[in-house]
């Protein structure tokens, strides 16, 4: 799922810290914005915009953190609104709903663990690429800019 790869260049201490912070940002946001899934995305988005003009290593990791939050947003928003509709409308708690929440929980926990792992690694200047997100980030994030 996660690969440690050699980056184009050796990131400096300052870069490693900024890149690691992009992941920490989403972790803190999870705690703050647990009931509202959009908070996580907004937090990483703000961080992404702030570091848009940063070095390639920082930009790359900000993008990876943002992309992973974006997909979690879809999963969590659906679960969030499903829950709201159960509380406020005629919708009943069904096995499908509970199954969805468990599936969403599994993916969220996985993402949480991977995020912590990546935050620690990037802090040491080690480049970590995630399955799918890593490739996607490389496609989006160009080194020349």
């Amino acid at each position: 799922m996660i690969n440690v790869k050699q980056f184009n260049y050796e990131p400096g201490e300052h870069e490693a810290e900024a890149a690691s912070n992009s992941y920490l940002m989403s972790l803190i946001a999870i705690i703050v914005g647990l009931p509202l899934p959009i908070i996580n995305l907004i937090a990483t988005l703000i961080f992404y915009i702030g570091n848009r003009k940063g070095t390639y290593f920082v930009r790359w990791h900000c993008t990876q953190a943002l992309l992973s939050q974006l997909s979690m947003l879809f999963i969590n928003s659906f679960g969030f609104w499903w829950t709201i509709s159960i509380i406020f409308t005629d919708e009943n708690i069904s096995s499908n709903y509970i199954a969805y929440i468990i599936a969403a929980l599994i993916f969220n926990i996985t993402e949480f663990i991977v995020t912590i792992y990546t935050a620690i690694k990037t802090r040491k200047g080690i480049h970590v690429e995630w399955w799918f997100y890593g490739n996607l980030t490389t496609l989006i994030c160009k080194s020349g800019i």
Partner: protein
Amino acid sequence: MKKTIIQGAISILLFFGTWVALTKIDWVTVFKVQKVTDKTEEKLGNLFWEIFQRTEKENKNPFVVNSIDSIVTRICTANKIDREFIKVHILNKDDINAFALPNGHLIVYSGLIINSDNQEELSGVICHEIAHINLNHVMKKLVKEIGLSVLISMTTGNGGSEIVKETAKMLSSSAFDRSLEKEADIKAVDYLIKAKINPEPFADFLFKLSDKENEATKYLTWISTHPDSKERAEYIIEYCKDKKSLYTGVMTTETWDKLKEKLNE
């Protein structure tokens, strides 16, 4: 690029695969969701019924009770409804009203029986209320109006007697959503046809009451809480038009007349 797309597709499939696989487990049973809901409903039903029992006078005349029971039993048997679950109570009150409480309590006011021209009209209203019970409309309405947390706190005795009273009043004097009312009407017609009771008088009953809507109708609770009776009568007639069948009365005309006599005493 291609590799990324494939990986993305696998990720999406993985999520939906996990979800589908998890739906194979009956979580509602695992987490005893139904049991908790049933227990809450049972407690709420008893709580509300106790309020009506305290404030209103229940008619326990065996003849009256048996007559209404015979209608309910006929409807339940023909439609495979658990007869034990429907608990009928007749209250001596002039209001033309009938309503359902949680846990299958069905309250019929004597005013409704007296003001029904025939037993089919009364059966129609009873079927409509049984439909509300069977389609779980009562609990849905309660959850929507006052919220699950308040309901649960009521069952544990923390709700405050005023809230319980107000909620009971709300159940007896306000309608469900228009869509739920229509659903109950259509279901009621199905019940009536299966029980071989003519559904047309039920529509007539609504027509009749819609005429009275303009008059000063302080006793017409059932109709004032069920708006647009004319429209309802129309779609009921439309629905049962092509469902003609051989209908029979539940009780004899003599019994019906005697029932009204007893209630008028």
